[in-house]
């Protein structure tokens, strides 16, 4: 029977000792441990989340970088093509210009030559005229010593001019 009837003395000591130990551990024991561990769990969760986010950001960055590289490669080819085209254009233009210039120069030279020739011809003609006039004067001075002859000659000249 004594097994199932609680003993007053043990009951008393149990209440006292359990109470004291519980109070001490409640004050200085368990909450410190559990709070710290909970804080650590939260910290771990937080860190994991951050790591995941960082990974995603890294992937994004890598993708962006790849995009940038692709883009710049495209740009490069474009620029190169353009440069080739521009070069061709420039060369063509330069050739054209050179040809134009050459033609212009040629034309100018030709005109100048023409002008020179003209003036030279004029000079020659003038010289020839003067010479011929001189010669004619000399000839005429000899032949047209008579008035009649002179008049005939004048008439002939006038006729010539009229005929013209």
């Amino acid at each position: 029977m004594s097994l199932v009837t609680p003993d007053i003395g043990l009951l008393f000591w149990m209440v006292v000792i359990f109470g004291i130990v519980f109070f001490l551990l409640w004050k200085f024991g368990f909450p410190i441990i559990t709070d710290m561990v909970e804080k650590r769990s939260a910290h771990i969760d937080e860190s994991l989340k951050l790591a995941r986010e960082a990974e995603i950001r890294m992937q994004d960055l890598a993708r962006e970088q790849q995009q940038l590289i692709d883009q710049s490669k495209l740009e490069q080819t474009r620029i190169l093509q353009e440069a080739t085209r521009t070069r061709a254009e420039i060369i063509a233009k330069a050739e054209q210009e050179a040809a134009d210039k050459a033609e212009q120069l040629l034309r100018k030279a030709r005109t100048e030559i023409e002008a020179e020739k003209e003036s030279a011809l004029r000079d020659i003609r003038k010289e020839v005229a003067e010479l011929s006039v001189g010669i004619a004067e000399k000839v005429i001075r000899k032949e047209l010593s008579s008035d009649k002859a002179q008049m005939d000659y004048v008439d002939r000249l006038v006729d010539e001019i009229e005929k013209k």
Partner: protein
Amino acid sequence: MRKWWFILVCLLMLPCLDLRAQEQEEEVDLPGIIFGHIGDAYEWHLFDWKDEPVAIPLPVIVHSKDTGWHVFSSHHLEEGEYEGFHIDPDSGKIVEADGRRPLDISITKNVLALMFSSLLLLAVILLTARWYRKHDALQEAPTGLAAFMEPLIMMVHEMARENIGEDYKRYSPYLCMAFLFILLNNFLGIVPFFPGGANLTGNIAITLVLALCTFFAVNLFGNKLYYKDIFNPDVPGFLKPIMPVIEVFSALMKPVSLTVRLFANMLAGHIMILSIVCVIFIMAKYGPLLLGSMSVVSVLFGVFLDALECLVAFIQAYVFTMLSSIYIGLSRQHAE
């Protein structure tokens, strides 16, 4: 492997050697042995040396209505009466000369074991807490004692979180305390020598106090919904007068079931192990052949039971804590 067989054989020889002296003696007092081990005592019996019991005398503190307080060492009671008190041979308790029970708050074997285990628990938990105070748990993993205690404490803490809900932090220290207290005392109870061996969690006074703590934690801090469920549950009208009676009864039975479950389990375990060990002593008079074979059986069975008790020690501590947290959770539930 051969070494183990050698140890086993040596172990089996031990009781035979010891029992040769007892062989001529009378019948083995089985109930005496068993109840001596699982019961309380005013002294802590360690072992017998040359047929003389060697025991630690413990202080007796009694208060008699007639003669007031008395404090003396229990070894005075060995000779019989001392200061008007003697141990009643039937109940094993201190009684006055006329057979009345004085108020008895002696430091008995169980009280000493309780003090020892409480100090041990206190030291272990405070040392663990000190680790967390001294170290930054965010920077380093716990080591040593803290690494050992953390899973146990966090297991109960998580249990509280799952079963109680949002204000579990208020109850978690109590549940941790109850769990570790029961676990430690269960294991100390299995240890067969001083300072273990006291049958603390198999004592109804201890389990009663624990269960009452749960009872108060449930009923003093129950919320409105809990009390509404008891006194005015949502049931058909004709059940209204009956339900409060049933609910109050069930609330009162919960601590009783907690008390008895832990007490009976631990007590039964101790009795089983003691009985199995006693088989060797009983078989002593039936000749060496039976004694030898039964010794083997009882040692093997004893090892099995000890292992089982280790399991039960944990399971009972777990069950007590689990049920306590569920009861507390029921008293803190919120309307869905």
